[in-house]
């Protein structure tokens, strides 16, 4: 079955023993290998590894990006303590981001699996359904944000046209403090559900038919089949869906930036948007970097917990 992430990579121990080539021919090949990896490795150091270290360093300082790096005033952990105790917007955005992620991941997992089960059963035109559900996945989040800002508009949005047509009260959706975040969850689920349907569908089709045949011989019903065959064998896929979706949802930016911008009253402010504003509107690079590190730590922690939870059980079966 599918192996998730890097966990299954380092299987062949032999290949990992360090060995320095002895013959000139082998040494020449070694040089070629270095030539092949040189540019990508340098690029990754310049654009990923270097920056993450630098970002950690900046998070301990006060910096506006204009003054020289060598003259950044040292602030120790005060950026972190400020964020966690004195910045109400950050704490609010953290809560919003969790809400957004939990709602989105929950809905995507349940609906994604549900629709994948439907499409995996005897159904006509599977390819067509798949295409229809997949369309938003490849559409720019910014375009979707514009489309849904219009659809959910308080005054002339089509959803409110229908609602008021039915005699119900007009809803604010994206402009309502109690509805903005929930509406964003809806849009995000709309955007990615097709991706998770495809993933779940591939997982379902990877389950050998024999298991179901055997279960039917034993007189198992559909629900028992689902409970004792489909779900356990789908755990690796479930792990992939939950982990990648959580990681992605916690980083949401485009959608919020282009719909609510965090409004009204920060009720839909998310961490990355707040970080963006802090850094590029208010030039507080230290504080923004600290924000990034707190979110990064949270993402790693959640990922570890999810992998533990879902994988232990997968191997327990």
């Amino acid at each position: 079955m599918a192996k998730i992430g890097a966990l299954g990579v380092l299987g062949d121990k032999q290949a990992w023993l360090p060995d320095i080539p002895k013959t000139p021919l082998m040494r020449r090949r070694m040089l070629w290998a270095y030539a092949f990896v040189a540019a990508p490795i340098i690029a990754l150091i310049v654009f990923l590894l270097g920056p993450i270290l630098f970002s950690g360093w900046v998070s301990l300082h006060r910096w506006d990006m204009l003054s020289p790096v060598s003259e950044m005033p040292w602030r120790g952990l005060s950026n972190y303590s400020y964020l966690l105790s004195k910045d109400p917007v950050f704490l609010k955005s953290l809560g919003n981001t969790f809400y957004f992620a939990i709602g989105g991941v929950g809905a995507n997992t349940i609906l994604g699996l549900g629709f994948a089960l439907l499409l995996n059963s005897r159904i006509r035109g599977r390819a067509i359904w798949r295409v229809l559900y997949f369309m938003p996945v490849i559409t720019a989040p910014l375009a979707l944000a514009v489309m849904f800002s219009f659809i959910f508009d308080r005054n002339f949005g089509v959803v409110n046209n229908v609602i008021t047509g039915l005699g119900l009260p007009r809803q604010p959706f994206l402009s309502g403090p109690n509805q903005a975040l929930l509406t964003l969850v809806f849009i995000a689920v709309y955007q990615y559900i097709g991706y998770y349907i495809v993933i779940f569908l591939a997982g379902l089709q990877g389950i050998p038919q024999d298991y179901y045949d055997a279960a039917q011989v034993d007189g198992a019903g559909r629900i028992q089949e689902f409970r004792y065959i489909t779900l356990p064998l789908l755990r690796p896929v479930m792990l992939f869906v939950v982990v990648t979706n959580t990681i992605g949802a916690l980083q949401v930016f485009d959608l919020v930036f282009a719909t609510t911008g965090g409004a009204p009253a920060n009720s839909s402010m998310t961490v990355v948007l707040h970080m963006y504003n802090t850094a590029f509107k208010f030039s507080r690079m230290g504080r923004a970097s600290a924000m990034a590190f707190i979110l990064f730590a949270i993402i790693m922690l959640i990922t570890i917990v999810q992998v533990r939870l879902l994988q232990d059980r997968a191997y327990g079966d």
Partner: protein
Amino acid sequence: MRDETASLQPLGDALKYLILVAGAFIMVFPFIWMMIASLMTAGEIQLRPPVWLPAEPQFRNYTELPQKIPIARLYFNSLFTSALIVFGVLLSSSLAGFAFAKYRFPGREFLFYLILATMMIPFFVTLIPVFFIVRQLGWIDTYQGLVAPGLTSAYGIFLMRQFIITLPDELIDAARIDGASELRIFWRIIVPLVKPALATLGTFAFIGAWNNFLWPLLVLNSRELMTLPLGINSMKSLYADNTNLLMAGTAVAVIPMLVVFIFLQRYFIQGIALTGLKG
């Protein structure tokens, strides 16, 4: 298929299709509504009671669009920068993946772990320093500033290594006996065999680059360099008073990509199922 009982349940079947149709309607409706609204007059959009179709389709919303935003320029910028990124990702990933899969050299283990580690770094953690580096290089508001950070992909290297490692060593050995150079082995033997993986990786890289918003937003200032998502963003001021034009502009930015997708959907979806589970 497995549920023979299902054919005995026309009611269950009807319910299945009902759910699928309802779901598909929700998925497609925003696109259709965008198209309909793009053909309305600005007034029709705001009418109460609302109208569902334009009295007369306003095609001039489209023909007059180039006066509002440089559509052709946006397309060129998006295509050009996305193509550069796809090319860079494919070349660097397959070369490095080849080296990690088929060569032995000191430091291989360390470097590969390094790449695995960078795969887990989210973009927002490096955003500020990368912006700073690009600014120090004087690359703000240039194509190279937009493209450079995206030319390599740790995930791409990992993916290509995983594919190339499954190829038999005998192929490479035989080519070496025939006197082929290392570059020739890469180009003539490895690349043709990993074309499906390259197609998948290229598709992902393309969609990622094409839809990217935050990085272009930070790096680009001038209208001449704007990509499509930035173009849509710059049109947002048309909202409310000229929502019809905003929808026309968004449709022009979105629909061609969807058409391409519908023609190539099989490869898209196969690739996603493949790498989604492998990665």
